[in-house]
Every structure is written in structure tokens, then in C-alpha cells.
């Protein structure tokens, strides 16, 4: 008999549910309870592209040390509430782990394992006895298993009652009925099993002042703080909640107190082409505008992105990446739109990208992107992903400096146009400051001066149509210069030099950050030490180039099949490809620690074997 797993504040629990049965709010209640006990937690929805009926899972990692990325491998506890997926769910439990199931129907003998603890609680039957209404019976079954967990894991029952009071403030009857459901499971577990089981929870102060929020909520809020007034969009998973969040916050914070009217305009367009068309039209006309989409939307927006690049119009585009290509895996995560975004559209185009890794960066990068896009007069694409966008993450509280101002970039308003000296002629594409960024004017600014024709066709420095080669090349070269200017303004990489003598480094970006600290700690235990660089934007700055130059071997860890960041680094920095080694994970689930550690070790041992082979 394998010894049951013993741990305090360190486990992974997985809830297996049926989509559309109201399990989400119960599962969320569990994560919130862990958070409120002061223990770091990362809940993750694993859901199908479906409204109702298919299996869905909610995986929660609880870790006192704050390691919140996916561990990989099996889980310590499964709460199995879906008969459809029972076999898979039993198989997911680690040896020594715990399998909690609804014993209203007996567990098929074929599924029994003797290396795990099987805990049967008749949730359906308990709720059938307690509640008369069918809907209540379905919903409260979920709350009942949370109650059982409170007993089994020794979670303070008070934490739940406080959360329920907060959640259902003003609806006391709901507090009462939910508490009843919680007690059903709690009492049954207490009475029937020895509580707590080997895995249990203790109050802690490891959470500190941190918050628990999803990336899309933070991105939408960032757009409010960044001053966005116009949003054209088209619903697509997993980006939809960015605009929903922006809309919700605007309804609270952007209502003109005198008139009750809105200081924002959100229009759900007919498709993604139209969504980005709105952004381009609004930005051209001097408003801060954005849209959010995912891979298929980026493909559709590509022509317009080329126009915005060439005509030099600010665009803020939040791309919450999912599994591609084509419709791919709409409810799974990946970092596979990198090259499609960096070079979106035909012709020689390059776009500015940023890579947030946590909700705080979602908020900050979104807010700052309006300054950057207007300063640079070009599209800026924020590369989030489903893992970050749709799951709650523990992160530092959001901050705002009240003495900030918006940087609206180089714009000549009526007064400046009026004061142009004799002989000074406004030219939309004149590089006055030698940084590749020219001055623009908003429509309607001045009766006589500053009007020009914006076009996607080639033009001279005064925006007049021309197909003369010299004018075209002059313009394209200036755009390259502007791209270099961009590298100085966008978020710098986070570089950690553990030791200058290390010859090896890891390079990563976005949500891979969630597993990196834990992976590096594990590698260190095996005597492998690395410097690290988290890329936060493209085009790459000199700092990025120097870091790469300074190491003999760099493991580029990313969540796509083709090593797109590695390609981009090689392409843009012209560094030796043999020094950049890909560590890849792209099955649609977020990269786990074991993929990083395994990927690096396998590579190193393969090389060792090769060397040994050569020597003999």
C-alpha cells in the first residue's frame, strides 16, 4: 500500500465538472478561500469550446512558496462530479493521492485503484433530501463538495461564510441557502471520514497585500486608465472579456456626472476587419482607441495593420492568444502568434509588440500602450494569452501615479499651425526631429494649414501621392529608423544575472514566467545554474542583444511549435542560431515546470552523449 500524500499548503486539486452546471462559482469560492487563508493559489479553468454538456475542469495549485505555474504530471486530489470523465479523472490522481467522488452512484469496480484514497460522498442524494427545487439541487451539489473539502482539508469554515456574505451582500436568503449546502458536505465528511486527510491547509501570511485577478480584467481596466475612449470589437474567445471588462469599468467610471452621458463609445462590429477599422479611424481623428482579439482576428486584421504601419496611425491591439492555426484550439493557450503579429500584413512591415506576464503588467502595458502608440504613430500589439487572460493570478496590487499625464505624441494643434513661420510648411512625413517620428495633425484643426491626405499608397514627405522610387525608399528607411526609436521606449527586459561567469541562460516571455523561478530552482538542485532574461517587448533593445552576446548557450523557452521567438531573435539580431536552443511546449495547456526542466536537461544530456560518443 502506497502511503497517502502528506502535505501542508502544497498541493494540486482538480475539479471535474459538466460545463454549464454552475460549478464555476463554487470552484471560484474554493480558490478565494485559499487566498483568504493567506496561501498563494492559482486556479485554472480547463474548458471546452461548448456552452453546455461537455466536461470541464478547474485545476487549483496551492503553494506556500508562491510557485504558481503548472507543476505538470498528475494531481494530488480530484473532485469527480462528472460521470462522463470518471475514468480520466481517476487516472489523473498521483499514487498516494485522493479521489473524491459523488457516491450517489457507485464507482465502477473497473475504475478502483488501490494506490489512492477513494472518498465517496453522496452529494446528489444529500442535495435531493435537502432541496426541493431541481435547479437548486444541481447548483448546491457544487457548494456541498466545497463544504466537504473544508472538512477534509481543514479550511476554516468561517472563511467561507465571510466570502459568501461578501458575495451575496443584500441577498441574505442566498447566504443562508449556500451556507446550508456548505454544511451538508462539511457535516457528512466530518462524520464519515477522519479529518483532515493527509493534505491540509494552515493559515499563512504568504499572500501579503497581493490581489487575485485575471489578465483580461486588468487589460480592460488599463484601457480605461490609459484614456481609451473608442473601442470597436468583435467577440472571440479568449479575448472577449477584455472588452467586457473595459465596458463594465467605463459604465462605473466614465459617466459624465452632469449629463449622465458616456465618455466612451464601444461598438460591436460585424467582424474583426471592421473592429480594427474603427480603431484606425478613431486614432486618425485624435481619440485613443483599441480593440482586442485572438489569432483568427489577427489574420483578418492584417491588411489594416499594414495600412496603420504605412500611413502611421496609432493602434492598440490586445491579442489574447489561443491555440492555432486556423480555428485551432479556441479554449486552449499558446504563444503562437508571435511572427504573425511582428510582421503582420504584406510588404515590409514590422510592428511593436509587448509581452505581459501577469495581470499587473496587463494593466500597465495596456495603459502605457496608448502613450507608446501615439508617440510612435504605429500599431502596438499586446501579446497576452488565454492562460493569463482568462485565469485569476496572484499579483501585486495595481498602482497609478496621480501626477501622470497622457503623452499624446507629436501633434500640431491649431495654435502651433497658426504660429508656423512664413516659409515653414507642414509636411506630414517630414522627419523634423531625426527620430523617424513625424508630426501629425487632427482633422478639423485649422482652416488653412495642416490638412493632408492619409493613404496606404506611396507618398512623399508632404503626403502627396508618388510612385517615385527615391521617395518610396526615403519613407521606408525612415520607418526603420522609427522602429529603432521604438526599441528605446518600450518595456525593457527583466534580466537576472545570477553570476557573470555563467555561460548558459534562459530566455522567455509572457506566461512562461509563471514556471521559471520554480524551474530554475529545480535545475539548480541538479547543479545547473543559469542567468535569465524575460523579454517584455519587440523590437529588441541593445540590452537584449548584449545579453545574448554574453552567453554561449541560451535556452529560448516558449509555447509554440516552431520556436517563433528564437526565429525572431535570430532574424532581428543576426545572432548565431547554434547558440539558441528551443525548449518548446505547445499542447494547448500552459507550459509546466517539468517541460522546462526536462527540456533543458534532455538537451544537455543529449549533447553530453554526443561529446562522449565523439571522444570514444
Amino acid at each position, binding site marked *: 500500500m502506497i502511503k497517502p500524500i502528506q502535505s501542508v499548503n502544497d498541493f494540486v486539486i482538480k475539479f471535474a465538472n459538466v460545463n454549464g452546471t454552475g460549478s464555476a462559482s463554487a470552484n471560484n469560492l474554493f480558490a478565494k478561500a485559499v*487566498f483568504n487563508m493567506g496561501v498563494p493559489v492559482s486556479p485554472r479553468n480547463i474548458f471546452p469550446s461548448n456552452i453546455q454538456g461537455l466536461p470541464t475542469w478547474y485545476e487549483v495549485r496551492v503553494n506556500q512558496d508562491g510557485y504558481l505555474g503548472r507543476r505538470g504530471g498528475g494531481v494530488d486530489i480530484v473532485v469527480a462530479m462528472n460521470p462522463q470523465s470518471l475514468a480520466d479523472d481517476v487516472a489523473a490522481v498521483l499514487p498516494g493521492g485522493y479521489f473524491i467522488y459523488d457516491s450517489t452512484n457507485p464507482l465502477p469496480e473497473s475504475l478502483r485503484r488501490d494506490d489512492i484514497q477513494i472518498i465517496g460522498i453522496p452529494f446528489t442524494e444529500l442535495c435531493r433530501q435537502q432541496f426541493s427545487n431541481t435547479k437548486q439541487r444541481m447548483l448546491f451539489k457544487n457548494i456541498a463538495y466545497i463544504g466537504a473539502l473544508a472538512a477534509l482539508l481543514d479550511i476554516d469554515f468561517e472563511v467561507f461564510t465571510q466570502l459568501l456574505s461578501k458575495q451575496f451582500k443584500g441577498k441574505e436568503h442566498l447566504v443562508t441557502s449556500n451556507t446550508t449546502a456548505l454544511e451538508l458536505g462539511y457535516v457528512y465528511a466530518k462524520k464519515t471520514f477522519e479529518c483532515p486527510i493527509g493534505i491540509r491547509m494552515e493559515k499563512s501570511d504568504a499572500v501579503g497585500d497581493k*490581489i*487575485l*485577478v485575471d489578465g483580461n480584467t486588468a487589460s480592460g481596466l488599463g484601457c*480605461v*486608465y490609459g*484614456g481609451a*475612449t*473608442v473601442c*470597436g470589437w468583435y467577440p472571440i474567445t479568449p479575448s472577449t472579456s477584455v472588452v467586457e471588462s473595459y465596458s463594465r*469599468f467605463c459604465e462605473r467610471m*466614465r459617466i*459624465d456626472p452632469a*449629463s449622465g*452621458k*458616456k*465618455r*466612451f*463609445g*464601444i*461598438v460591436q*462590429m*460585424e*467582424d474583426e*476587419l*471592421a473592429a*480594427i*477599422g*474603427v480603431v*484606425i*479611424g*478613431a*486614432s*486618425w*481623428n*485624435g*481619440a485613443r*482607441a483599441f480593440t482586442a482579439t485572438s489569432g483568427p482576428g489577427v489574420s483578418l486584421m492584417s491588411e*489594416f495593420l499594414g495600412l496603420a504601419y504605412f500611413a502611421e496611425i496609432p493602434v492598440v491591439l490586445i491579442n489574447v492568444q489561443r491555440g492555432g492555426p486556423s480555428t485551432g484550439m479556441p479554449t486552449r493557450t499558446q504563444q503562437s502568434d508571435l511572427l504573425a503579429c511582428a510582421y503582420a500584413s504584406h510588404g515590409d512591415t514590422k510592428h511593436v509588440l509587448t509581452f505581459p506576464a501577469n495581470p499587473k503588467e496587463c494593466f500597465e502595458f495596456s495603459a502605457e500602450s496608448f502613450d507608446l502608440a501615439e508617440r510612435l504613430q504605429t500599431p502596438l500589439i499586446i501579446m497576452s494569452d488565454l492562460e493569463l487572460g482568462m485565469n485569476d493570478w496572484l499579483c501585486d*496590487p*495595481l498602482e*497609478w501615479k*496621480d501626477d501622470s499625464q*497622457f503623452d499624446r505624441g507629436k501633434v500640431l494643434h491649431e495654435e502651433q499651425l497658426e504660429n508656423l513661420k512664413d516659409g515653414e510648411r507642414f509636411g506630414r512625413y517630414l522627419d523634423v526631429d531625426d527620430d523617424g517620428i513625424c508630426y501629425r*495633425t*487632427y*482633422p*478639423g484643426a*485649422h*482652416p*488653412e494649414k495642416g*490638412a*493632408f*491626405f*492619409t*493613404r496606404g499608397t506611396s507618398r512623399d514627405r508632404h503626403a*502627396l*501621392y*508618388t*510612385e517615385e522610387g527615391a521617395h518610396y525608399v526615403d519613407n521606408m528607411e525612415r520607418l526603420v529608423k522609427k522602429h529603432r526609436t521604438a526599441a528605446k521606449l518600450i518595456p525593457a527586459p527583466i534580466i537576472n544575472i545570477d553570476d557573470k561567469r555563467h555561460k548558459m541562460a534562459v530566455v522567455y516571455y509572457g506566461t512562461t514566467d509563471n514556471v521559471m523561478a520554480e524551474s530554475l530552482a529545480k535545475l539548480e538542485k541538479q547543479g545547473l545554474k543559469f542567468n535569465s532574461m524575460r523579454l517584455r517587448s519587440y523590437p529588441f533593445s541593445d540590452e537584449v542583444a548584449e545579453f545574448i552576446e554574453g552567453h554561449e548557450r541560451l535556452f529560448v523557452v516558449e509555447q509554440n511549435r516552431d520556436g517563433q521567438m528564437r526565429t525572431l531573435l535570430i532574424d532581428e539580431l543576426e545572432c548565431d542560431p547554434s547558440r539558441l536552443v528551443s525548449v518548446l511546449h505547445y499542447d494547448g495547456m500552459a507550459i509546466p515546470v517539468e517541460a522546462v526542466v526536462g527540456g533543458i536537461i534532455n538537451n544537455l544530456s543529449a549533447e553530453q552523449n554526443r561529446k562522449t560518443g565523439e571522444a570514444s
Partner: protein
Amino acid sequence: MTCVPKSKFHHPQLPVNELGLTYRDYEGSMSTLCAGCGHDSVGAAVVQACFELSLPAHRVAKLSGIGCSSKAPTYFLGKSHGFNSVHGRMPSVATGANLANRELIYLGMSGDGDSASIGLGQFAHVVRRKLNMTYIVANNGAYGLTKGQPSATADRGSLMKGGKEVTDEGIDLVSLALSMGATYVARSFSGDKEELVPLIKGALSHKGFAFIDVMSPCVTFNNHQGSTKSYDYLRDHMESLISADFIPHKSEITVQSEPGEAQDIFMHDGSVMRLRAADESYDPCSRSSAFAAIEAHREKGEVLTGLLYLESGASHLHENLNTVDKALNGLGYKELCPGDEVLKELNESFR
């Protein structure tokens, strides 16, 4: 071909409008369209309309897609900002521009390829969104820049240059605009300035989506025997049903129209569209009446022109969204950024 600015020289005694501007002040650069192109006449009608309305040109934003018609805005209103966007997508750019600043006048210039072929989706949606703009399609049934292919408005059974018969059904943009909820719908002919100029003036003064389908022959690729979009064919088959006079709000309305003879429709700014229907049973404020008339004339092989439908006082996108009266692009940091105190409260709600 490089853009050629037009000479600003003009006769010292050219008439001036209320802003002290002459007709020449509303022109753009030299046209590079074919000599005799209907689109240049449409541009001239826009110039005439803006001049007569005494519009400050810089408060007009010109938007277009791609094609001969979409090049046309370069050749009128040189003091306005213009935006030549991508093929078939001008409506979304116009939507964004309009959202950003509701105080400007938006003039969309498109073609039959741009609006009925590649851009049919965006066209339909901008109409149903009731964007406050004037949308002109210079309609010649053919692609010019790619040399004469039929567009989606080419009539079934008509002949393209070279004799090939059009076998697909032609799209009637006027009927489409009507069914999608346009609140000002007109059709005219580039060769009939008398009719076209008042229609453009009315459209520019209309609050809501104003659509004008202007038959504008392509002299190079679609002006031959067998075409239904040629100058000859159109002159023979145009049936002007509803003539419209635009009476600006500042003018005193001296002659009251007799009931039954003409119908005065007040615009939001107090100006008046005075409509005369050749057929007494026609009610230009009735959508079904417009549909019936368009269809009846189409069956007879005629092209119905004039102001076919007008709904005054209908709401437009900004009103439907309930946005503030001030232009959104004019709101400042204090009006837009909620600040750190609010963020602190939000942090608390995320715990």
C-alpha cells in the same frame, strides 16, 4: 503619376459665399481620372454643394476606400483632411472617425466595386448602425483601375466592353440602403448637376445616414452600346420622380408650397428639403412607398432618381450610444483617468 496641385489663380470677381470663399477655395488638386469621367462631375457637385452651404472645408473629413471613385476625394475640398483607406473598408474607418469627433462632417466617397463587391458587408453594417455621415457611391458598374471587369452593380443581361454578357444579378444599392435603415436615400446622375447638388446639400445637412447612389459613367470601360451604365443609356432611362430643393435655414421661406404640390421636410438645423413628387401617390417619407416605386421603375427598365426617402429626426449612432455631447477626442486626462484612489478600492475588490 505624381500629385499635381491646382493653380489657385482665379478671377477677382468670382462670387463669394458667407465665409467670403469662392468656389475655387473648395477645389482639390488636379484630377488624374480619365477625361469625361463621371466621378469628376460628382466631385464638382460636392464642391458646389459645400460652397453654397458655406461649409468651412476644414470641418469636413473625406473618407474613401480604393478605386477610381476613392481617388476622387483628392480632387475636391483640398483644405479637408482625407483618408484613402483600404478596399471596401471605408465604412469602419468612418465609424471610428465619427466616434472620435462627432463635431465634424463626414463625407464618404466610394464606388460600386468598393461598396457593393468587396465592401458589401461593411456598407450594409454602417447603414444599419446609422452613422451620421454622407455616403456617396459613384456607380459605374465596372472596375476602372483593373480595366473593365464588371462590379456587383452591373445589371444582369447588360454587356461589358468586349461584348461579354453579365450573368450575375446586379445589386441595387438604393434598395439595400433602404432595407438596412438609411434615413436619407437618393439616386442621381453625375450628368445632372441640377438634381445632384441639392441632394448633396440635403445629405450633408441630414443628421443620420445619408446615402446617394450617383450613376457616374466610366467613359473608358463602360460607356458602350449594351451597357446600362453609359451616358446614353442613363439619359434615356432616368426617371426623376422626386425633385428636391434645399432651402438653408437662414433663408426666409417666401413661397409656401401648396399641399399636394410639394412637401416641406424640416432638417435638424431648421433648413428645409422641399420635395416634389411627379407621382402624387408617392410619399417620400414612406419606406414602402420608396420600395414600390423603385421596383416598379426597375421592371420598366427605368432608373428612378431623386430623393427617394427621407426620415427626419431619426437617431444616429452617437445618440444610440448615449455618448457625451463633446467630441471624445477632446476629453482630457482628468475626464478620462479615474486615478489612484479608485484603483485602491478596486484592489480591495480583487482580494
